[in-house]
């Protein structure tokens, strides 16, 4: 397999027929392969997220990240777009599902697609990855330390978010969860609760929780980065997607 790839910004038709920006990275060779939808973290459609998209192409997948803040702030800098979206209340769950579904459709429409699509999200995107897998036909989902999949979000603030406990029985894809034992949201107790709910509902899942790691241990440009956890996490993701998105 060649490590040559092509990456660019495109427009896709998102939720409710809205045209939104997306960042796409694809291997240059033309063999059939799976696709990965990357959900960016709350700080936005930024350089670090685009690096993750390119890494999935380097791993052999067609990968796409929809810009979830495009409607509020087209062509804005990622941090300004994130601030604008936050001030307006954040990304509604229904819209997130629509945009991820549109991104999955985009991937399955590519001539290289083997029709299998996974999703991955980090931080707030971890919750949104689970949300998408409860509502869309996806083949694998990865939750990287998403808060409020279980647990109680803060009340009384403009940015509303609910937990996903009532939706977990509808989870349609195997779930890989990667967590830091020093994280408070999700806490180890919340990770255990999620594990128990999925087990009780017969949902296939694989969780790994890392010592000496808190929230955002994959983020190479932040002090939360933990190289051992991140390296092992990438190996787990690679193996998981090979199993569920391969051939």
């Amino acid at each position, binding site marked *: 397999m060649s490590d040559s790839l092509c990456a660019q910004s495109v427009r896709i038709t998102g939720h409710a027929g809205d045209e939104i920006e997306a960042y796409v990275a694809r291997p240059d060779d033309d063999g059939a392969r799976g696709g990965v939808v990357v959900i960016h*973290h709350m*700080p936005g459609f930024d350089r670090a997220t685009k690096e993750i998209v390119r890494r999935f192409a380097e791993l052999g997948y067609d990968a796409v990240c929809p810009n979830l803040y495009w409607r*509020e702030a087209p062509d*804005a800098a990622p941090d300004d777009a994130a601030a604008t979206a*936050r001030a307006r209340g954040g990304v509604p769950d229904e819209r997130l599902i629509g945009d991820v579904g549109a991104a999955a459709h985009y991937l399955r429409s590519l001539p290289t697609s083997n029709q299998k699509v996974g999703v991955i999200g980090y931080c707030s995107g971890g919750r949104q990855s689970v949300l998408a897998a409860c509502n869309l036909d996806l083949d694998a989902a990865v939750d990287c330390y998403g808060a409020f999949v279980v647990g109680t979000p803060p009340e009384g603030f*403009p*940015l509303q978010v609910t937990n996903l406990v009532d939706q977990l029985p509808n989870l349609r894809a195997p779930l890989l969860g990667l967590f830091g034992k020093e*994280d408070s949201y999700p806490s180890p107790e919340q990770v255990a609760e999620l594990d128990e709910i999925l087990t009780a509902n017969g949902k296939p899942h694989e969780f790994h929780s890392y010592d000496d790691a808190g929230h*955002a241990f994959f983020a190479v440009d932040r002090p939360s980065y933990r190289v051992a956890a991140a390296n092992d996490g990438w190996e787990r993701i690679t193996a998981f997607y090979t199993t569920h998105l391969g051939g």
Partner: protein
Amino acid sequence: MCTYATVKTTIDGSAKGPDSSWFHVTDGTIYFDHPVHAMAEHTLNIDFADPARGPSARVAVELTAASARELVAAIQAALESAPAELTI
């Protein structure tokens, strides 16, 4: 964690922002969450903005929790040091 907590307030004043230009600010958004630039896991973030001028009309600060509390105290002290009739 992503706290999701966001407090909004209406403000009236000016800020010096992009391209070293002053602009009128109408909205303040305050949240304790991940910073974009500060070397801390979480910070108290304040956006001074004029949404009518677009997403880039924003002055952002990211402060450690301790320095944010010091700032609150300093603002209070500065306001209280001025004659009351000037700070209504």
